[in-house]
């Protein structure tokens, strides 16, 4: 951060698109992120099918309302073949005029607006946009690509004139970008975990001579801006309360449907009757306090978070809502070993494997997870409590440590 502050002045912010949330109750997050992008003076925002999930009319109305610089070179109205949004923007940055355009795949489902939209073949749209941008004086051309990794690279190799490609749409994080012919590529992961920095060296006319890219995270060495953190936290707390109501309604519906299924979750109270040693060890691990970590950050009603902090979320016999606390909260026996009703399969079919852990400790949630190193930390012979110490978790609920629900 200090190096950017002291070294550079010419910075352009872009978002590649794909910022709409996963589920309907989280619609507010789309609005919040759009406000944030405007506040940050984001120069251009790419478009993906994700932004169309609630229809074109809805998207256009909030884009207009927020005056967000959404761009797409190949998303067209089917009837007129005219672009739905601006095909590109040009941003002046020092000696450079940066032309930014966006492409999405022509193979995706466009959701409720699929009948009224058409996605042009990407490379044709790219050639046209590059040509127009150059005629308008752009000296550096940036593609916000929602084509995935391989197709983005193929397009950069096939279509000359693109200086930088921001690769998106299920693209894994790669800390360093690379050159594809004369184009520098960026692979910044997803879910806002990383920010990607593409550094372009300019000649006297503002054209790119070389480029490099690196994606990075904000570590503890960088202090938060308290006022920004507060804005985010206030939004998240309000959203969590809203989601809590939606979760209650959903849970009530599920409880009516889930009666006596053949296989279902039981909760650890039953397990610990026989497995007392394992229970005692489990209570020394951060798994036994996983629910509290959600409460602490007021995410205990956020569906995308709950699943990895309770037993059998939305599954038969599993956690459906807060009324199931404390019996089914935390990462308990059945998270690793499987449904209690399948106990006889534990020694044969239901082995704990890397897949068991990576259901939650996967790339997005735990990018540095290493099964060989982490499994011993929670193995039933390990009473060191190192997972709690590493996470610096404060056992705010002493009952958890003294014999509350659960045992693994």
């Amino acid at each position, binding site marked *: 951060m200090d190096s950017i502050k002291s070294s550079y002045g010419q910075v352009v912010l872009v978002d590649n698109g794909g910022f709409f949330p996963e589920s309907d109750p989280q619609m507010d997050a789309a609005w919040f992120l759009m406000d944030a992008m405007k506040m940050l003076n984001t120069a251009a925002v790419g478009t993906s099918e994700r932004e169309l999930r609630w229809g074109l009319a809805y998207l256009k109305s909030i884009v207009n309302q927020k005056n967000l610089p959404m761009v797409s070179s190949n998303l067209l109205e089917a009837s007129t073949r005219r672009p739905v949004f601006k095909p590109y923007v040009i941003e002046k940055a020092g000696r450079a005029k940066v032309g930014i355009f966006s492409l999405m795949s022509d193979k995706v489902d466009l959701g409720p607006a699929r009948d009224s939209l058409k996605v042009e073949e990407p490379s044709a749209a790219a050639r046209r946009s590059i040509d127009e941008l150059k005629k308008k004086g752009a000296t550096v051309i940036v593609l916000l690509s929602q084509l995935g990794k391989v197709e983005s690279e193929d397009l950069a190799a096939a279509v000359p004139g693109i200086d930088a490609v921001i690769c998106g749409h299920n693209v894994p994080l790669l800390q360093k970008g690379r050159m594809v012919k004369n184009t520098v590529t960026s692979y910044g992961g997803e879910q806002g975990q990383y920010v990607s920095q593409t550094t372009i060296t300019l000649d006297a006319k503002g054209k790119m001579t070389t480029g490099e890219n690196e994606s990075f995270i904000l570590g503890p060495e*960088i202090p938060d801006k308290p006022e920004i953190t507060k804005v985010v936290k206030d939004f998240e707390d309000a959203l969590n309360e809203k989601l809590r109501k939606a979760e209650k309604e959903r849970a009530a519906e599920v409880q009516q449907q889930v009666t006596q299924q053949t296989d279902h979750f039981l909760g650890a109270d039953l397990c610990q009757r026989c497995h007392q040693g394992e229970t005692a060890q489990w209570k020394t691990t951060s798994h036994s306090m996983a629910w509290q970590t959600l409460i602490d950050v007021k995410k205990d009603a956020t569906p995308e978070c709950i699943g990895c902090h309770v037993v059998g979320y939305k599954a038969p016999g599993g956690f459906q809502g807060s009324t199931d606390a404390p019996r089914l909260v935390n990462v308990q026996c059945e998270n690793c070993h499987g449904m209690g009703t399948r106990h006889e399969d534990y020694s044969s079919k239901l082995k704990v494997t890397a897949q068991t852990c990576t259901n939650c400790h996967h790339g997005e949630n735990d990018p540095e997870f290493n099964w060989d190193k982490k499994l011993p930390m929670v193995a039933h012979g390990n009473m060191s409590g190192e997972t709690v110490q590493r996470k610096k978790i404060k056992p705010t609920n002493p009952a958890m440590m003294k014999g509350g629900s659960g045992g693994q």
Partner: protein
Amino acid sequence: MSLRSLSSRARVALSFVVLAVLVLAVAAAVSDTIKQPDKLIILSTTDVKGKTSPCG
């Protein structure tokens, strides 16, 4: 527990905050002098999927 104290915070960046800090830093730099006029920085996020912070 504050966001700051989350252990996961170190590896899961809150891009909104990151970018805000970067913009403020950059704005300060611009108002001063452009020390490397031959450099252009593109800061990008992608596929944020509605996320504003880690779960916990």
